[in-house]
């Protein structure tokens, strides 16, 4: 298979990316020939908007909202764009709560405060794991294991918490919604936690739990859902592919020598990218054959990023594979 990617011009963001899972989010705005990127640095989110011709860049910084209690500044756990048919929102999750902004980061439209105790408890409190589901939901995970389901109107700030899903017992690490664009898939959302447990959900007025996939006490740090297949990256450096609805294990890849920090999939080509603390970014090709219900995972390419403290792996905009393969 010919190489389907090339390295594009590097984009400098204002400060280094923090050591957090899934610390790079990308939003392509085709009508305006722009791509937005965000990366979290401690208590701020660095956002850069880059024109496709590579000539114009503009930067913005968003701060963590402190909440009511005047304690030490809140660290941000994750920032991600949620793409819904009527609108795109930028969601920030922190130790204090959940902030939602218009997609260019200009206006905060919603704030949800977490129940932070007055004196700190042994178990940390934070929100982490963000996914846009179906036409109207944004789901956010919490350190307690709860998944908050927010109902998002077509416009405006009348966002409401419609449901709290209590299935996980450990802190949520990541969440993902079906990204193939197919409306035939039964499973809409997968949530992952620190014990490696994966929960598969169907969205609706009341979200329905379709299945649970145990993790054998290995944290799952990053997850994607594509064509009904759960793609999960684990702290042991393994990637596993499960059929979402049945929990059948399709494939297991001993992919990395260290903790995986991020997995991402290009939905049209089935190119899967994994990035880990071993400083490798690896690209895999997935092919699913529905007729035989089989999955094939082929290693595609491996790239070593020698810049260390390369949580800058997330900086490496390798997500361009994702963008370039939208054709």
């Amino acid at each position: 298979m010919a190489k389907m990617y090339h390295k594009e011009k590097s984009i400098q963001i204002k400060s280094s990316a923090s050591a957090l899972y899934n610390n790079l989010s990308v939003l392509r705005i085709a009508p305006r020939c722009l791509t937005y990127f965000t990366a979290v640095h401690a208590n701020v989110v660095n956002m850069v908007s880059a024109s496709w011709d590579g000539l114009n860049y503009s930067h913005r910084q968003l701060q963590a909202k402190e909440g009511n209690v005047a304690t030490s500044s809140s660290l941000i756990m994750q920032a991600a764009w949620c793409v819904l048919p009527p609108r795109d929102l930028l969601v920030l999750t922190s130790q204090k709560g959940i902030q939602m902004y218009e997609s260019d980061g200009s206006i905060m439209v919603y704030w949800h405060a977490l129940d932070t105790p007055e004196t700190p408890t042994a178990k940390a409190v934070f929100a982490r794991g963000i996914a846009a589901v179906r036409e109207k939901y944004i789901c956010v995970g919490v350190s307690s294991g709860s998944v908050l389901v927010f109902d998002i109107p077509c416009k405006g700030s009348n966002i409401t918490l419609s449901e709290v899903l209590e299935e996980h017992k450990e802190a949520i690490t990541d969440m993902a919604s079906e990204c193939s664009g197919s409306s035939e898939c039964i499973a809409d959302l997968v949530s992952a936690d620190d014990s490696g447990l994966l929960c598969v959900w169907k969205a609706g007025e009341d979200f329905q739990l379709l299945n649970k996939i145990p993790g054998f006490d290995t944290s799952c740090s990053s997850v994607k859902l594509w064509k009904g297949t759960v793609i999960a990256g684990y702290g042991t450096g393994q990637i596993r592919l499960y059929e979402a609805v049945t929990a059948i294990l399709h494939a297991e890849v001993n992919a990395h020598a260290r903790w995986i920090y991020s997995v991402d999939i290009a939905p049209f080509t089935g190119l899967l990218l994994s990035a880990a603390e071993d400083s490798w970014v690896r690209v895999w090709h997935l092919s699913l054959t529905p007729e035989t219900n089989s999955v094939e995972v082929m290693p595609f390419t491996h790239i070593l990023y020698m810049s260390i403290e390369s949580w800058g792996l997330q900086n490496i905009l390798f997500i361009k594979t994702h963008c370039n393969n939208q054709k």
Partner: protein
Amino acid sequence: MSTRTLPLLFINLGGEMLYILDQRLRAQNIPADKAKKVMNDIITTMFNKKFLEELFKPQELYSKKALRTVFDRLAHASIMRLNQASMDKLYDLMTMAFKYQVLLCPRPKDILLVSFNHMDAIRDFVKDTPSILGQVEETNKQLIEIYSLLSGGEFQLIRQTLLIFFQDMHIRVSIFLKDKVQNSNGRFVLPTSGPVPYGTQTPGLVRIYSCSGEELRKTLFRDNGNYCAALREGSFEMYGDRVIKLGTNMYSVSRPVETHMSGTSKNSLQHTKDKQANAELAKIMGEFGEEVEPSPSSSSKGDDLLAMMDGL
């Protein structure tokens, strides 16, 4: 983020500080009894019961400034005195050393093994003084109690909290530069060879399964690294082989530390006017590393110099 990070940060930084001070005391041939007194006094303060009680309460990390103040006080818990520049250098060395250990830990839980390496060494420093040894062992027990049961994910959160605390610190340390574990831009080198962490498989295998769960086929791929199987797991008990070398004394006797005296060393000895007993301690001076920038002789009378020159 993690409310359980502070004790580990304090103990590991403290451990590094003790390694450095111990090396300096030996390098300057300070009489054994005086050197021991310095170490004992600092360790006693470090393991003060009330202080540790506070430390072990679930809380966010102190600010960088507050933590620095803690170590300023700790470094001055004995008759040894450091001027501002020396304290700065000491703190830089301590923090970069621990940052290195956190980054290089094969798996997040190994931070506990690194902490135990420091604790083992501290116990050894005070093995002849039962009262202090008792304090240290008590703390060791507490560490085991609190941290042994944390999950991998919780340790990763601790690790992420530490990395965010150390984020953007790129001070070059000559011992790291020499060993090529740090680049000249201050970034640490992550090796792509060596044993994988305990619990991880070496990269290189894809397994495909059938719907009934049997393995259909295996594919090997070349991962371009040079990894080998994991070593055995280190011990999380009070005593035992930790296996991991991170957190052990990199300044120990067997390892020659380069000292380099520049021409007219401006940072030379300053004798105190204090009692004779302090006279030798007043002479503590040392220089690490190849490039030595003579510091301006701004030290006032009565101040000892612990001049540690590093490739800054």
